[in-house]
């Protein structure tokens, strides 16, 4: 790199009493003005476009659709919620979705742990930087493409099917959906875990070793408790993303229906917006309970 001597900076021009100067002084004197200026647009956006839309959804949830004219009937009724709670099929699908989301989270936590440990405590700085890129990259390689890749692998003619020895019979179903979701969201678990392990000073692990703790004991009694917030942060992503997913079940699920598919079918196929809005309350409720339950761990600050 060549170093060129920069011209000595010109002495700052005396600020003239222009409009710009006036604004600048006004802003400098009044912190609240600066703050409200900065907050105005983003808050407007978040509150109107996002929270407003969510609120409107809960209003629509209490409406119905006229089955003859397909017009919205805007009289308040609990009918949609009664159907959702009353019909066994919705309960089955809801429980199935929760089990899948929990399964995906568990698989990801188990698979992510060794990688995160290796990245944070074993790999040398160069390898570690490379590993971070290697883990992050698939996250941005089209979601649809990855689900599709699994469809190819699990197809009647695909590599996995050949490996298992059931050629001609695609391996699509609930199991495939769970595995593919776990595959898709794995980086969301690895990254917070890696960051969490990285923050734990080596001296803690050394102290455990000095006190006679072997690798497994150190892992169980020192590392794991300290990692709880990171695990929770990762699980928010894997759980929420699984719960909100729509296409994986369509692509590798065979006839499997998850709760998101029910919402989609009601909105797009049956054109029943109020019922879809009411059904949308379920994932919101689950996530609100989940977030409230984990708030104490401090994981939310790690998102």
């Amino acid at each position: 790199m060549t170093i060129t001597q920069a011209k000595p900076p010109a002495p700052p021009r005396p600020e003239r009493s222009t409009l710009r100067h006036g604004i600048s002084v006004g802003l400098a004197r009044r912190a609240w003005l600066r703050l409200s200026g900065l907050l105005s647009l983003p808050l407007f956006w978040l509150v109107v476009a996002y929270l407003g839309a969510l609120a409107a959804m809960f209003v629509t949830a209490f409406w119905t659709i006229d089955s003859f004219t397909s017009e919205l009937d805007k009289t308040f009724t609990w009918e949609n919620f009664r159907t959702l709670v009353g019909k066994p099929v919705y309960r089955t699908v809801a429980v199935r979705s929760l089990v899948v989301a929990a399964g995906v989270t568990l698989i990801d936590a188990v698979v992510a742990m060794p990688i995160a440990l290796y990245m944070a405590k074993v790999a040398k700085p160069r390898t570690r930087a490379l590993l971070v890129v290697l883990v992050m990259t698939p996250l941005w390689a089209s979601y649809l493409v990855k689900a599709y890749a699994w469809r190819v692998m699990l197809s009647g003619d695909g590599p996995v099917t050949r490996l298992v020895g059931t050629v001609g019979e695609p391996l699509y179903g609930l199991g495939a959906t769970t595995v593919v979701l776990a595959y898709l969201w794995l980086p969301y678990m690895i990254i917070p875990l890696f960051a969490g392990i990285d923050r734990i000073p080596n001296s803690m692990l050394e102290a455990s070793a000095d006190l006679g703790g072997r690798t497994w004991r150190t892992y169980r009694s020192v590392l794991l408790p300290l990692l709880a917030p990171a695990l929770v942060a990762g699980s928010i992503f894997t759980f929420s993303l699984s719960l909100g997913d729509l296409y994986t079940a369509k692509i590798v699920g065979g006839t499997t229906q998850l709760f998101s598919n029910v919402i989609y079918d009601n909105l797009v196929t049956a054109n029943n917006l109020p019922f879809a809005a009411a059904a949308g309350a379920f994932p919101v409720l689950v996530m609100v309970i989940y977030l409230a339950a984990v708030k104490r761990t401090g994981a939310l600050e790690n998102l």
Partner: protein
Amino acid sequence: MILSRAARIWLGTLTSLVLALIYLPLAVVIINSFNSSRTFAWPPPGLTLAWWGKAAQSQGLRDSLWNSIQAGLFATLFALILGTMLASAVARFSFFGRETLSLLVVLPLALPGIVTGVALSNTITTVLHPLGISAGLFTVVVGHATFCMVVVYNNVLARLRRTGGTLEEASADLGADRFRTFRLVTFPLIRSALLAGALLAFALSFDEIIVTTFTAGNFKTLPLWIFENLFRPNQAPVINVAAAALIVLAIAPVWLAHRLGGDAAGGRL
């Protein structure tokens, strides 16, 4: 030496194994885009470039690609403006409700995508449609910007926290006004974080399908087009090429963001 030798070897083996597993499906797609068998028999009987030529001719693919680029650029622009403003407020001020606000920003990422999708779809039908606005590029951009904002916010916030406010104060002490300080001090400080955030926001928008499903109307983005053609056997070769191209295209922004930000592709999303 904190981990036993055996433990380190174990961890290394597991890491390579999982990484191989992560990349295997992607490799299968890329190889299949050259597979000379029309039914994608495995292993491929031969390799061909014919599908790539055919894909380049596909009007549907080209149109949807252009739509996705437009949506991505606008969403990134909105996300940059909103995310930077919000990050500056949170980093440089302490005010009532700051904690709530920083939780509110990540909500679009923390709540399942289908919720955002249904909520926006409902808004389009019940509020925007009577006003004469129908689903299309605009609604897609609004939907995308809501969660793209988070990645810009995270990147800029991390940078602002790391640099502290002292440089801006020094600039003010030397007589620069607010605007000059922003132009000469703050902006250069956060420039690479902005660029990294923008790249990630674009990648996020480019790939999004769930919120898009509910906000797009007849505006077909690339993921929507791919899904529509996923189950049509005669389109399979073109889909394979599009998929392979997307994988390769995804590597560029992440790699760039990582080089630029340091904190960009690293610690968090």
